[in-house]
């Protein structure tokens, strides 16, 4: 009985410790920004790793999501005689929610796990210690470029997802289901607000980008330096990253789209 309590207390303290370490790591990452701006090549490489390499999965997913939205939306809206609002429905769903959220989940899976594995492996093969010994701060050199690479890539990827999704919705709605071309776009343009919808969607994706990248980097940095430890860390990145995105989405949606 007392043992279980003690264990609970220990794991609670351990969790607090981890939280503290994660914040210290983030502080170190942010302090590295000035040095990063002097060496943009590092940032470029990371935008490539996180952004460019995720374009394919994001674009294909966006296309299919947009098409399914149009399909499902049409069937529901036609029951109320409101097919003309299909454009609005597809665009609003994508720009406000699905674009930022699904992109973040995809990136957490693809790029997040890759980041964690890379950092974890560097830790396990003592490359991070080696950098420390060469008087190079591994946080500023390795983690900072990756953090800002993720932060920068996410809103761009989310925008691509939404844009491709709207086009997919257009092809299905107007091309296949016979919604009027002009009405599709004009209704959408009337109802989708630049500030309320597009900007808020971008803000969401930036927040998700920060969260997912932070989690991915921390799991790698804090991993147990064995192959098993790294593998467990990558799993945690995907799971915690997904949960964080969904939780933050709820909070942000309530703040942005509530009254």
């Amino acid at each position, binding site marked *: 009985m007392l043992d279980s309590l003690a264990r609970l207390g220990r794991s609670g303290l351990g969790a607090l410790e981890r939280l503290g370490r994660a914040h210290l790591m983030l502080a170190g990452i942010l302090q590295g920004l000035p040095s990063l701006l002097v060496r943009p090549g590092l940032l470029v490489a990371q935008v490539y790793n996180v952004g460019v390499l995720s374009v394919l999965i994001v674009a294909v997913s966006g296309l299919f999501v947009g098409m399914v939205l149009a399909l499902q939306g049409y069937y529901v809206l036609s029951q109320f005689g409101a097919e003309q609002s299909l454009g609005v429905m597809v665009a609003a769903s994508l720009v406000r929610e699905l674009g930022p959220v699904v992109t973040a989940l995809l990136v957490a899976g693809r790029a997040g796990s890759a980041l964690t594995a890379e950092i974890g492996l560097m830790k396990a*093969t003592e490359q991070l210690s*080696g950098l420390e010994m*060469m008087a190079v701060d591994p946080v500023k050199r390795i983690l900072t470029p990756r953090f800002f690479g993720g932060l920068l890539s996410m809103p761009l990827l989310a925008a691509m997802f939404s844009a491709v999704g709207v086009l997919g919705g257009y092809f299905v709605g107007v091309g296949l289901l016979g919604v009027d071309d002009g009405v599709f776009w004009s209704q959408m343009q009337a109802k989708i607000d630049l500030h309320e919808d597009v900007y808020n969607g971008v803000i969401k994706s930036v927040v998700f980008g920060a969260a997912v990248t932070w989690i991915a980097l921390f799991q790698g940095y804090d991993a147990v330096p064995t192959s098993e430890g790294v593998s467990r860390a990558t799993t945690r990145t995907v799971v915690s990253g997904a949960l964080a995105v969904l939780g933050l989405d709820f909070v942000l949606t309530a703040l942005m789209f509530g009254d």
Partner: protein
Amino acid sequence: MTASAPTPGTQATARRDVLVRIRGLHFSHRENRVFDGVDLDIRRGQVTAIMGPSGTGKTTLLKLISAQLYPQAGTIEVDGQDVHRLSRGELYRLRTRMGMLFQSGALLTDLSVFDNVAYPLREHTRLPPSMIRKLVLMKLEAVGLRGARDLMPSELSGGMARRVALARAIALDPLMIMYDEPFTGQDPMSMGVLVTLIRQLNDASRLTSIVVSHDVKETAGIADYLYIIANGKVMAQGTPDEVKTAQSPWVDQFMHGLPDGPVHFHYPAPQLEQDFLG
């Protein structure tokens, strides 16, 4: 010879000769008492070996000297500076004068051999690329791998990777080099190469070398001074000859690799009769 700190009388002259001075070191990791009051002197220009059974925290000692870890008590001075009291900037400056060779080499896997050796030069100096190129090739030549400059770390054998890491460690012409288990897992030929390199580098560049190892034969062969650490304390120290002929049975068992002695062969177990006849 048993553990003892240098006598007060010799301290004045010894000060300048000693590059790394460790006094009263206490370090624990979780509940494990790694160092329980350790005093060490590493003299300039010498190859000092730190030996002991596996798991006695020899790598930890190197991390303590380079201030990657902080002790619970005690001081470590490198070139007169207390490493654990330095500011971030001062510590980094000090580290550029310390080279370290990790057990696995710890080369950056996404850079070529050339770029790995050039890394510290590019980070810490503003030398022009032509100058850096010459320096890198010189360091690679010193370890015999100038021709391997364009290979990637994944294409190197273990021994070659360690030599490249050594070239990188001496890139900034440091005061001292620390070798973490350099002989582990090497075939006799690469072992011979490394042993020669360590000694040559030390003498040619008037370096101070600290070799951490449990390989008695090779280490004792090149060391000028030995420390044997076990159970968190210095069990023996002296020149290789002094230590080999020590009176302690424990040191005897360690140095000669005897299977049984103060460190028992049998892990504590119930009586033989109990297990087989009981």
